[in-house]
């Protein structure tokens, strides 16, 4: 008689929050150790400690806040404009036959364009000031938002909508109480993509004709081969990304607790 061997293991990865922080801290420590032990030349790659000092100097001189606030403002406005427009268009395309095919055709044609390539065009249209930068971000955020919203609306179980109709709920009630909440998970996971898209476009737009902003700062540092400050700027961008992704995670926990 043989014991029945166990075959049911694996395929169930778990999240360990401490391990994600631990990994990032560990990598930075390793990097610092490599620099301190002269395994990594700080000419080629500044040590974390140098970057931290550069960041501290920026904060102390007040320069940090000038760039950070300029960038965050553009990010907030551009993302919000693109998101709101994308949600509205996505909802219309998702709900109306008349809008569906034309809308999806336009979105599919414009979505793959690298938005960075359009920055000069936006500068001609909207001037070199804030307008062209915000529009670049909004434009980049708009398309993925439309696509995610349409997918979310399509994914709302048909039987729930029919339930609403059979109980005589009005059109707007069905949209507000059934379609939108049903599409929310897809919309929120789209936010993860659009926030990173927005950060990438922010830097690109700020590298073309801006005095203030993290993108402009990184470009200036790069032109001077000031790698400490260059990486300080990169660290700031990465931090913004981490914070936004944490915020979206909180929103999901809060709004989707019913799942």
């Amino acid at each position, binding site marked *: 008689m043989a014991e029945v061997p166990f075959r049911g293991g694996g395929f169930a990865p778990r999240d360990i929050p401490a391990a994600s922080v631990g990994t990032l801290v560990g990598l930075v420590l390793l990097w610092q150790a490599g620099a301190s032990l002269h395994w990594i030349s700080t000419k080629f790659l500044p040590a974390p400690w140098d970057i931290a000092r550069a960041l501290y100097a920026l904060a102390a001189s007040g320069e940090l806040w000038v760039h950070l606030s300029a960038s965050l403002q553009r990010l907030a406005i551009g993302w919000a404009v693109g998101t709101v427009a994308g949600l509205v268009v996505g909802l219309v395309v998702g709900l109306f036959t008349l809008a569906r095919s034309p809308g999806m055709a336009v979105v599919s044609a414009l979505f793959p364009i690298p938005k960075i390539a359009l920055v000069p065009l936006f500068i001609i249209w909207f001037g070199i000031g804030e307008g062209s930068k915000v529009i670049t971000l909004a434009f980049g955020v708009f398309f993925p938002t439309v696509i995610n919203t349409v997918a979310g609306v399509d994914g709302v179980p048909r039987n729930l909508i029919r339930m609403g109709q*059979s109980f005589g709920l009005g059109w707007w009630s069905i949209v507000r109480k059934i379609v939108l909440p049903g599409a929310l998970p897809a919309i929120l996971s789209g936010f993860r993509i659009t926030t990173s898209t927005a950060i990438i476009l922010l830097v690109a737009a700020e590298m073309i004709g801006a005095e203030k902003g993290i993108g402009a700062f990184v470009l200036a540092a790069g032109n001077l081969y000031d790698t400490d400050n260059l990486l300080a700027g990169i660290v700031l961008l990465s931090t913004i990304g981490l914070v936004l992704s944490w915020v979206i995670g909180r929103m999901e926990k809060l709004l989707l607790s019913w799942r």
Partner: protein
Amino acid sequence: MTGSAVRLALEGVGHAFGTLKVLDGVDLVAEPGEVMVLIGPSGCGKSTLLSIFGGMLAPQAGRVRMDGAVAPDCLNALTYVFQDFALLPWRSVAGNVSLVLEDSALSAAERARRVEEVLALTGLSDFAGAWPKQLSGGMRQRVGIARALAVRPAVLLMDEPLSALDAQTRGLLLDEFAEMIARAGVTTVYVTHNLAEAVRLGQQVVVLSRRPGRVREIVRIDRPLAGRHIEDADLLAIEQHLWALIRDDAALADRERVDG
């Protein structure tokens, strides 16, 4: 409880989905307060017929008539109970019931009172704040019933409401349904493929043929719902008769190719 007394009739109803002829020349009458049960082999058009009854699908031929008095407190005359419950997962039990009252002119207090009342009636008072995902299948369908009763329907349209449940839960809910339907006095159209359910609830059991569905036979059971038990000899005899009627059709339907 409700003062509605509604007669629901199909006159010469026929329907096809594309080239698939599903219903053909169906005439049916559910008298006020009567329970009509529809049985027939799977795919014969029972759900389609129920959609037509409730105005959720426009038949290609024939028409549906509703006659009689709808009570003044009725908010939705033709009301469904669904096989898959159709609860909003993002609303609590009370929220799911309240949903169907929110578009009405009821005051918030009156709405809350109605929600409370139907939750008590279906034994859900302790679950008012629960999410649907926290409930068993039986409890979810009780929410479906509570939601339907909250609008004080004149007609209840139930499409295999017990099919998604295990046998034990089904037995319990069947008796609760019988009691609630009898008490509310609503005209009811109840679709099932379970013959025990048919004889427990039906005052008129309509046997449909294989697709395209036609009325093959109507079996009347004149005993009041309250005194019935699925093991009663006369009900078992009717059940056997029904089985004899649909057996061959069911076997044929089972071997049919399903397209679309």
